[in-house]
Structures are given as C-alpha cells and as structure tokens.
C-alpha cells in the first residue's frame, strides 16, 4: 500500500488561451510538510483549488488519500489566503459551521471549536463575532476552522499572513504538532524563512511549471556555498585561489566580500590564502545558500531553470 497522500500526475489547467498549470507532477507522503512556493501568478492557487476539487484539471490526474477528491472532501482541511469567514458569525459558530459541513454533528463541532479556541488562548473570544476580532485573531479562527474536523490532509494558503512574529511562532508550533499527529500538510507561502523552518519537502513553481521538487538541502545544493569575508584590505587576490567560482567585492557601505565556492569546497583555502598574504580578516563565515537565494535564482528575472 502506497503512503502517498497526494499524487498529481501531469496536471494541466488552462483558462482560455492562458495555461495556469502546465504538466505538474508531484507526490506528498503521509505526515510530511510540503512547502509550495512560487511567485505571484505561478499557478499555486489554481493547483490548490484542483487538489480541493474546486476546479477540474484539463489534463492529468489528481488522487488525494488514494481516491478521487469528491470521495474524500470531508478528510481535507483548507485555509484560503484571505479571511474566508462570515463577519457576523461568532468565532465558535464559524469554526463549528465548517465542521458540520465536513460531516461533524453540530454539538460535537461546537465543543471541538471551543476546545481549539482554548488551545490558542482565545476562549474569551469564542462568542465574539468575527467582525469584532483583530486580524490576527480572525486568522487563527480561520486556521482552526480548517482543522476542526481533524482532517488527514491540510492545505494552508499563506497561513502566516496577518500574524505578528509571536503568533507566527505559535502557528509554526501548531503546524508541527499537526504533522506530529500524522497529518499531512501542504502550505503555500512567499516567506522563505517559514518554509525553511517547517518544510520536509519543497515544490517551487513558476509560470505554471514545476522548477524544483525536493528537500531543503537539495534546494540549497542548487547554488554554490558562499563565504563572507571582511578585512581592511583588498581581497580580490582570492580569485586565484583554487575552488573559488566568483568573488564579489563589498557593496558601498557594506563590510562583506562575498565569495561563491565551487562544489566540494568548504572555504578553508580562503583562510589559508589570507594568512599567506598576512591579511588580517575581521569576519569569516561560510554558509549554504538560503532558500531565498535559491528561490530568486530559480524564478527571478535572470533565472535559468535548474534541474530538480
């Protein structure tokens, strides 16, 4: 028995002459957190809608929880990008309403809604209308309504939007807890730090096509390691050091020279070269490229699609 929760196979979606999603394939295994990344208009929302059964694909197939989507609708949780709540509903009723639509009994849904609100420290606001909540509180209520029915697969579209750093940390912990309970989570985001901290796997889209699928380490491996050095001297001599791919002088007002290293090079040769020339360094570090750099290099205006 396969442990794939979601399988997209060569999925294409067109709106008239515009191809929103073009031959997309990927799979997501149980208990994993998948980051779904891409610039605006990449086809993320269209893909999410197809996974929810809101839009049918023009080509290809989608299987969720091993079945067609219509059969498993009640086992999926969904958080849209903006606040999808009735403003005049009370917080507990809003959460319970989605629970009942997903098959729960009303009393059961209401009890669970109150318990979830308590878990987020919102028990005092259970009977407050959504229009009376702050943006962050409403976002939490929205998230709780996506999981009230204890779904196996949760789709979160920009879940951190509207939350302050403290609440973002709280939500990160909540998402990790859901994954630890065995739930499978797919979330789309523009904030790379969240994806770096949370995701087991990443899918990066642009122009409706998949540019990357893999782990965070695999994504980082797409770009060379990068060293940052600071000194009161000219460091351009480092170009001659074996294993150096590129040397970028410090930008005006910035102390750091940036050195791209070739694969397999850990930067110790840079330290040795500086020592040989008696150049005292005030700063030295070598770090793998951030997801932000990978993302920009993949989908930025000068990008070239790298093999996944």
């Amino acid at each position, binding site marked *: 028995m396969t442990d794939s929760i979601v399988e997209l196979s060569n999925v294409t979606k067109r*709106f008239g002459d515009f191809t929103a999603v073009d031959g997309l394939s990927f799979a997501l295994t149980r208990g994993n957190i998948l980051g779904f990344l891409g610039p605006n208009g990449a086809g993320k929302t269209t893909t999410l*809608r197809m996974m*929810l*059964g*809101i*839009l049918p694909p023009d080509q290809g197939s989608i299987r969720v929880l091993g079945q067609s989507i*219509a059969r498993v*609708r*009640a086992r*999926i949780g*969904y958080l*849209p*990008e*903006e*606040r*999808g*709540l*009735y*403003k*005049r509903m009370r917080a507990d009723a809003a959460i319970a*309403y*989605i629970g*009942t*639509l*997903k098959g729960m009994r009303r009393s059961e849904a209401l009890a669970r809604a109150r318990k979830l609100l308590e878990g987020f420290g919102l028990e005092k606001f259970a009977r407050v209308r959504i229009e009376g909540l702050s943006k962050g509180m409403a976002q939490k209520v929205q998230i709780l*309504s996506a999981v009230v029915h204890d779904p196996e697969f949760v789709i979160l579209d920009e879940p951190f939007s509207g939350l302050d750093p403290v609440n973002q940390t709280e939500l990160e912990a909540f998402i990790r807890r859901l994954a630890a309970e065995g739930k499978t989570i797919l979330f789309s985001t523009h904030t790379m730090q969240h994806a770096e901290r949370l995701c087991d796997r990443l899918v990066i889209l642009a122009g409706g096509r998949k540019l990357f699928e893999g782990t965070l380490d695999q994504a980082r491996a797409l770009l060379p390691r990068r060293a940052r050095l600071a000194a009161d001297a000219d460091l351009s001599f480092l170009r001659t050091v074996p294993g150096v791919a590129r040397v970028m002088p410090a930008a005006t007002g910035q102390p750091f020279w940036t050195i791209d290293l070739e694969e397999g090079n850990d930067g110790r040769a840079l330290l040795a070269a500086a020592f040989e020339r008696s150049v005292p360094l005030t700063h030295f570090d070598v770090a793998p490229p951030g997801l932000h750099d990978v993302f920009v290099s993949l989908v930025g205006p000068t990008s070239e699609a790298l093999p996944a």
Partner: protein
Amino acid sequence: MRRTFLIARQEFIKYVTRRGFVISILMFPLWIMLVALVPQWTGGGNEPRYHHFTVVDRTGGAYRQAIEAAVDRKYHGAANARLTFGAPPAYIAAAAGAQFPAAVRHALGEASAPVFNAPTLDAVIVVPGDFGVNGKAAAEIWSRETLDGDFHAFIADALTQMLRFKSVQKLAPQLKDPAVLSATALVQARNPDRAANSNSTVDSIIPIALAIILFVVSVMNASVLLQGVVEEKSTRMIEVLLSCATPREITTGKLVGVIAVALTTLIIWGLVLLAMAGIASHDTVALVFTSLRAVATPGLLPLLLVYFLCGLLIYGSLFLAIGSMANSLADAQSLLGPSMLILMLPNLMIAGVMRDPNGTLASTLSWVPIYTPFFMMLRAASNPPAWQLWGTLSLAIATTALMVVWTGRVFARHVLTTERPPSLGALFGGLLGRRA
C-alpha cells in the same frame, strides 16, 4: 442533502438576523398602513376638498337647484360641510362673451371675501343656456387653481342626474323628485362552482396579494442573496464552501434558505396585516377570511403555493447567477438594473390582466416562462381553463428546474473567476445547455 440543509440553515440565520430584515418586516405593513390612512388624513377616500362655489345657470335655474340640492343631500346643512355655495354676484350673471373671464377673475379675486371669516369663492360653475338641448351637455367650471377630480365628479353627477330627470320627465310628467334617478345597480360576480354567497372579486384578494408579495419578497430577498454571494467571493468564503460542498449543493442550499426567509416574511406580514385589519374594522377581517376560505381549497391552495415557490426559485436563481458573475457590488449593480426592469414589467400589467383575467392579454402573458408564476397567481381565483392551469403549471416547474440547473452551472463556472461577466449571448447559450 445534509450539506444543502446546513447551507440553507446558515443562509436563513444570516438573513433573518440582519437589521435590514427586521426593518423590511416592519416597513411593509407600515407602508400598507400609510397607503390606507394617508387618503383619510388628507381628506378621506372620495371626498372633495373644501370648496365654496357659485352656479351661473343660464337655462333658468333648474341645474343650479339640482347642484344645491345634491350638496344639501350630501351634507344636510352640516357646519363642516366640504362644499358650500352662494348666489352668483349680479355682475357675473350679467357678463357675457369677452367680459365674462374678467368678471370671474374679479369674483375669484379681491371681491371674493368681502366679510371677515366668510368663505372664499374658488369656483364658478357655468351652465350654458343650451345645456340639455339637442344632446348638448357641456358645462364649465371656472377657477384659478386646478380643482380636485372629486369635486368635478360631484358636479358632473348632479348635472347628469338633472339632465336625465328632465328627459324622463318628458315621458313621465308625474315624476317630481330627481333623487329617484340616483339609485345605482350593484353587480356582483358569482361562480356556480363556489359557495352560494361567494364573490369572485373578494375571492381574488389573497391570490392578488400573494402575487404582489411574491414580487416584493423576491426583489427584497434575492438582492440580499446577490450581495451575499458577491461578499463571499470577495472574502474567499466561497472557496471554503466549495472545499466542503459541490456548487449544486451550495446553490440549492442558498435558494432553499431564501425560500425559508420568504415564507417567514410572508407569515409575519400576514399576521401583522390581519392584526391591522382587526384594528381597522371587523368587516375588513371578515373580508380577508372570506377570501382565505375561497383560496383554502384542495384545488387552489397547493396550486398557489407551487406558483409562489416557483416564482421565488426563478427570481432567486436569476439573482444568484448574477451574483456569481459579478466581481464587485458595482458589477452586480450594473447587471441588476436590466434584471429589475425585466422583473418589474408584470407590475405594469396587473390592471390590464385583472380587468379580464381570462382574456387574451392575461392568457398570453401567462405563457411567458419567467412571468408564469406571477400572472397565474393573479388569475388563479378566476377559474382559468384547466388546460391553461396544467400547462402553465408544467411550464413554471420546467422553467424553475432549468433556472436552478443553469444557475448551478453559471455558479460553478464563474464564482471563482475574476474575469469580466459573460455576454448576454453566452448566458443564453448556457441556458440552452452550452457552456456559460
């Protein structure tokens, strides 16, 4: 089915807990009350305004006496009589031709109130010398302001009565009292299939009221439905709903919710109006109950309910489809305008249809699919031919089914898009089965 019910329940709660719902529930009976009471406050039903007039009768005086007698008969010399008269000033009676308007101007102007607290002359009635001769029967009312129609009608009635009396008196000289000609005949419409004392006009009260309420409730609730969908689109709530239920379940749930709101409105209005009628007079309550008894038959009541529900569903579907195509309230307003004009059209035809409920106009309009429920409710108590009843009933049900299916399609196709609303051609194509 359960999800449809849950969505319907949510829609019902959403609408009935709005301030606007409570206001509209109160507004309609208030409006009816104003329609009934304002004429009484402003002078009462068919009563003329206060007038002090004089009659210049150039035929010798019989017509002046007839008018004065009619005033006496109406007010019996009461101090608060709305109509009072005086003898014409001599200079008016003497004036003729081009001098007459100047004489009237003088009489209606500075010379009209010579004594403090005396009534002001505001009309001069002129009966020409040849009035009643060789079929001529044109009198004149001279005044500086436009007078009310009730005063005109009163004078015309008095003159007509005397005119007829004079004609009859030539044949029967023994007749002395013109009042014998004032009797009017009352013709009541009866139906051998109904109770012996039933009256077709009274029997039609409830069906006509239902037809009008159908229009008011449809416009009121369906526009709220439209706004609700536009709001759900803008907050992405619609996406959450679509992740829980199919487009068909959502549209059906919304329509069922609207029907529940409409029926609630209908019941509340019915009770409030009945209470108001009870306060007004026991006769009015009796009249309403007579009409209710006529309608509450196994043949008519289910029919009226089916037409009412079909009408609600047709108009609700239309507004729901518009809401799902609109990206903003401004978009919705631009689509709403033409739709409202289409919906309002039957209201302009009510008088024509009710004049002859089984005539060509009424029969023809009953076969226009989106108007069928409205016109058939108007006609239901008038015993239309059975083939029309069954035919239009089938048409109404078929139209309702088609509209609900079409709305589901339009909703599924457009509710998540932000593209421009489709053209009319594309929409009609959708109605015929092509993709809208």
